[in-house]
């Protein structure tokens, strides 16, 4: 052992890929991909230059929003969005509670577990927009299709997180309640529900927040709400009205985000 065992010089920290030639190969591959990818992006520069002027008009519209001219359309879209958000969250949470309980491995029998897990997987892997397209095709244009879409998406989200939460509960409490000879329903009510309730409320508030954001989007494919109004105003090139709608969306999203994070902290 040498006298000097402290490092006196800075050494390079370990790399993610240890082998040198692999590192070079990966770097080369990434570079090659980037060149090919950028090469296939065709940009119509004439159109972009034209767009600069429109972009300026849009920014001007955003800074001087026009709330009044289209206020009737905006308020109708807003009411549709807000009611859609609330009703779909309530119904979605109500449906996802039994599904979440069924998808918890420690409470449900095997076959129920698999059925509920596959419902959750289907709901989570389909994007809201694609679901909305189908529901619009089936149920016609308007807020009802949007309501169904958001409910469908809520089931997957809350169901999965609730099931994981139920699987993580303190087993000692469940055992204590079971030892008193409680039935399955009593077990759920007195051992599981008090443990997961705060988190369920938190998740529901979080989902309310997400549902509002999504409700602003699914209107683009015809499922009602403020997104439809925004789409119309943009295709009419009325940038001051679109600026107003965007400001309203941003304000409501920020408001719901702050209030829901406060409420969640309070519930905990």
């Amino acid at each position, binding site marked *: 052992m040498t006298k000097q065992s402290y490092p006196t010089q800075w050494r390079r920290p370990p790399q993610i890929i240890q082998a040198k030639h692999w590192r070079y190969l990966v770097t080369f591959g990434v570079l090659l991909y980037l060149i090919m990818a950028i090469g296939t992006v065709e940009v119509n520069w004439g159109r972009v230059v034209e767009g600069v002027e429109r*972009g300026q008009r849009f920014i001007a519209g955003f800074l001087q929003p026009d709330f009044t001219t289209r206020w009737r359309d905006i308020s109708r879209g807003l009411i549709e969005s807000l009611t859609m958000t609330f009703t779909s969250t*309530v119904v979605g949470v109500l449906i996802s509670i039994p599904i979440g309980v069924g998808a918890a491995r420690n409470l449900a029998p095997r076959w129920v577990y698999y059925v509920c897990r596959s419902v959750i997987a289907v709901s989570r892997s*389909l994007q809201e927009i694609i679901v909305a397209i189908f529901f619009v095709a*089936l149920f016609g244009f308007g807020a009802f299709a949007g309501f169904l879409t958001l409910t469908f998406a809520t089931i997957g989200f809350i169901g999965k997180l609730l099931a994981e939460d139920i699987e993580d509960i303190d087993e000692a409490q469940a055992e204590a309640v079971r030892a008193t000879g409680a039935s399955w329903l009593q077990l759920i009510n007195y051992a599981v529900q008090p443990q997961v309730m705060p988190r369920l409320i938190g998740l529901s508030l979080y989902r309310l927040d997400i549902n509002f954001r999504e409700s602003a*989007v699914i209107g683009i494919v015809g499922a009602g709400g403020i997104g439809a109004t925004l789409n119309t105003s943009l295709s009419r090139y009325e940038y001051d009205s679109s600026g107003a709608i965007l400001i309203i969306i941003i304000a409501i999203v920020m408001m719901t985000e702050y209030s829901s994070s406060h409420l969640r902290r309070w519930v905990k």
Partner: protein
Amino acid sequence: MTTTPTTQTPTPVWHPRTPKARITLWFFWLLTVALFVYCWNLMTANTMWVFVYDAPQAASDLFNRAFPPRWTYMERLWKPLWDTINIATLGTLLGIMMAVPLAFLAASNTTPSKVFLRPFALFCIVTSRSINSLIWALLLVSILGPGLLAGILAIAFRSIGFIGKLLYEAIEETEVSQVEAITATGASQAQILNYGIVPQVLPAFYGISVFRWDINIRESAILGLVGAGGIGSQLQASMNVLAWPQVMVILVVILGTVVVSEWVSAWVRKAVI
């Protein structure tokens, strides 16, 4: 609030809540139900119930027309699929480039000015987060015209908020003692960043970026609906001519891409963290 029983009956009955709490809770539920009924009425005021009652028939109709999927359409999907992946990847890279400086400006321990630059950076992050990428695409298509560029920029603008927020939180959670040790050696500000903070947030940074890339693949698949290129434009075109067998093929391709990208992102995150 205590859980002691306050009933005056000779044999006290245990209740999980005090009477006051019970009444409050009851009123809360009443209000929720009332609000729900009110919202439901407002929302369904314009609903055409005829279409809703028709839905089962419409569903079976759609199902019959969509099957079997037209698999030969696949050969025309490779180019849009390549475009979709490019939109997601280039958009993520562009988003990272803009998000990293913003994150350092927004983190309270690295920001150069708490009064001016930090609120500005936080405002950029919040704005980018509250507007969905599809709305960004809608705006950019209306400004720049349809095409891949609008899609890439839309993905990039939406990614700024996501990456920026998670990264600045990671920067704020770095350990102070390591930064102090570097400062004690007489390092300059830039050296403190480079040797004290960057190594601590690098794993989180890789994780966040790959996670966002995975989300972006999902989102870029549908951006084409508003004209921003990728596989979504084929979806829109097929739906406009009611070619449901083609729509089925596109949906299967999108689902497959999403599953693969999720698998890649989970693998990379496991390797990095």
